[in-house]
């Protein structure tokens, strides 16, 4: 088991999922998709300049190109009235194609390949090492990612209140005197920086899964922001550990394995989450249908209670004709209501029981 890989994976997961919380809340997921693709252009251009794959200038250039992407998308939207999604798709593919063209013409003999950029190479992180004063030699990716993680924690900790307001109520943020524009671009710088730092390990596409996946899972479990952050981190760490173990056990691609776990854990939570999960929703829907049907029955019985032809209207065997429902459905409804104790049957006439009246009064009040 290689602890370097695991450490890089964990730091990546924590750094990306932390910023992912605010990214998803601010509806910037696809913008991030664009950034993650276009940082390639920054890296390629900077590489043409410095000719060194490990230069910190690469990170700088890539972060700048992420910001350039955001600016381009917003300019296109503002000046040419292009819808945001179309602008994102346009800018992303254009800058990406330029990067690929440069890669395949000018940089064919270097080991900067499209595959590595898109898919990352987590398995090789321990070969690039940096020696730091006092703490010795560490994988370069780990050093960079830890720096980015610290930056993310500090920044989001410091501006927690501002981003909370900005995420949920942009107008209020404006009124309170925060500059939404400045905060937005600061945040975008952070996203850009995080994608750049992470893409060396996990690649430009999978980084989106790490950013968006855990927070979406957590969102299905809670509505409170502090809890959301905590749950997001827990899910992210769980995905990383599981993904790493699977990849290690069967000798598979680690980053892809982590992304697969992200997808699977999200789907599992989507199905089984206590309140917002699909099963729970199905069950709630089911319960509601039953409640409404029983209320319909009680309302009908109440309506005809003092009626002259109560014998006809409240006869359990002919009731389905009055409801114009299938006979089986009506029979089941009567059985269910009897089981709950909401109705009583006497001489082929059904009447609402005291418990039924209570249920009726309660339900009509809360409706």
């Amino acid at each position, binding site marked *: 088991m290689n602890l370097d890989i695991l450490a890089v994976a964990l730091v990546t997961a924590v750094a990306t999922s932390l910023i992912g919380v605010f990214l998803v809340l601010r509806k910037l997921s696809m913008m991030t998709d664009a950034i993650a693709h276009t940082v390639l252009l920054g890296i390629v251009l900077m590489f043409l300049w410095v000719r060194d794959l490990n230069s910190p200038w690469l990170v700088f250039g890539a972060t700048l190109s992420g910001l350039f992407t955001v600016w381009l998308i917003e300019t296109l939207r503002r000046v040419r009235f292009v819808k945001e999604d179309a602008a994102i*798709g346009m800018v992303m593919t254009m800058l*990406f194609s*330029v990067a690929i063209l440069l890669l395949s013409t000018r940089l*064919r003999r270097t080991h900067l390949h499209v595959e590595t950029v898109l898919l990352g190479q987590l398995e090789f992180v321990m070969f690039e090492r940096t020696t730091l004063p006092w703490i010795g030699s560490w994988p370069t990716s780990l050093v960079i990612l830890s720096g980015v993680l610290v930056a993310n924690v500090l920044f989001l900790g410091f501006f927690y209140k501002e981003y909370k307001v900005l995420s949920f109520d942009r107008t209020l943020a404006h009124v309170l005197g925060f500059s939404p524009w400045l905060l937005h671009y600061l945040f975008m710088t952070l996203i850009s920086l995080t994608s750049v730092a992470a893409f060396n390990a996990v690649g430009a596409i999978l980084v989106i899964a790490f950013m968006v996946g855990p927070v*979406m899972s957590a969102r299905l479990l809670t509505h409170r922001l502090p809890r959301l952050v905590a749950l997001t981190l827990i899910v992210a760490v769980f995905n990383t550990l599981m993904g790493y173990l699977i990849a290690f056990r069967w000798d598979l691609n680690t980053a892809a394995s982590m992304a697969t776990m992200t*997808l699977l854990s999200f789907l599992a939570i989507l199905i089984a989450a206590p309140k917002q999960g699909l099963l729970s*929703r199905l069950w709630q829907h089911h319960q509601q249908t039953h409640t409404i049907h029983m209320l319909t029955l009680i309302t009908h019985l109440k309506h005809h209670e003092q009626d002259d032809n109560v014998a006809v209207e409240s006869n359990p065997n002919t009731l389905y004709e009055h409801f114009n429902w299938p006979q089986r459905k009506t029979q089941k409804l009567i059985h269910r209501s009897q089981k709950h104790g909401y109705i009583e049957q006497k001489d082929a006439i059904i009447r609402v029981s005291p418990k039924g009246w209570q249920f009726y009064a309660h339900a009509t009040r809360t409706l």
Partner: protein
Amino acid sequence: MPIKHFGVMSVFNLGFTLTVVMLGTMVLGILGGVLGTLLVLRRQALMGDALSHATLPGVMLAFMLFATRSLEVLLIGAFLSASVAYGLMLLIKRHTLLQWDAAMALMLAGFFGFGQWLLSIIQRQGTAAQAGLSRFIFGQAATMLREDVIRLTVVSAVMLIILIGLLKEFKTAVFDPDFFSSLGRSAPGIEWLLRGMTLVFIVLGIRLVGVVLISALLIAPVLTAQQWSVRFHRVLLLSAFIGGVSGLVGTYLSATRANVPTGPVIVFVLGLLFLISILVAPKEGLLRKSFEWHRLKRTLTLYAPLIHLYEQPEGTLRLEDVVRYEVQGYVLKDQDQWRLTAKGEAKVKAMKKVILDES
């Protein structure tokens, strides 16, 4: 064996293979332009991006299950897995409070990661036939065979016929789904048809331009066409034209230079056309705008005193202005007071209108 004389293309003396591939990408470009117009107007421009990434696990699974590189099998796998991803997105949108774009991003990256994971399983088994699979990520038009192009052309032609035949329906459903439903037509039906065709388009196209860039074929021609016109039919035609031309030119450029992948070149050509359109488009183009802006500024510096006189009839004019205006017939002396003529008033009103339009 290269056949030099093949239809109209023989003028350029292109090889047979290149001609075939060029035809294929052109057809794909035309279809992308038409389909993209509807998608962009429906605000589903990024659909293509998400779905293309989601095809990967299907391709890998099909390869693992059937141990074949037969393109049909792999394409069907791609279609199925993109459909599953789309179904999940719709499920999330309908039953949870999560945002649509987040769902799209997660499915895009999650499915892609899953496909990558499957690929690493295939690679571990070391099957000799794995080599072609990575082509699906980046696309390789040069390896298209005649059969591929024929299939592509036939399927595209069928879809184009459907699109043109139902154009009125698509147009109404895109611009006003409620009105469309009120006519007793099925808006969801049209929606599903559009979704299905987008899926087929992507599955056909990833082999040529790769999963990352396929969405450009759906978006760029439309945005370029929209610089020239706002009329639905014109945008549709122009966008099909731009898509076709880019496919043709891009393939030619990439084939005549070594080591240049086709997809990025096509997208680059699309990008150039977009930039040119932004600059020179007749109404909204930047050149035209800046020209009009300068003309307005010049007019204002020359004729601002006329506006002052219009607002304040008792006002005075400077001598050098008066001389010019009188010669041009904008002002007239009336009892020691310069007054605007009818022509002068018309001039002032015209200028005011331009200023109002600009601001």
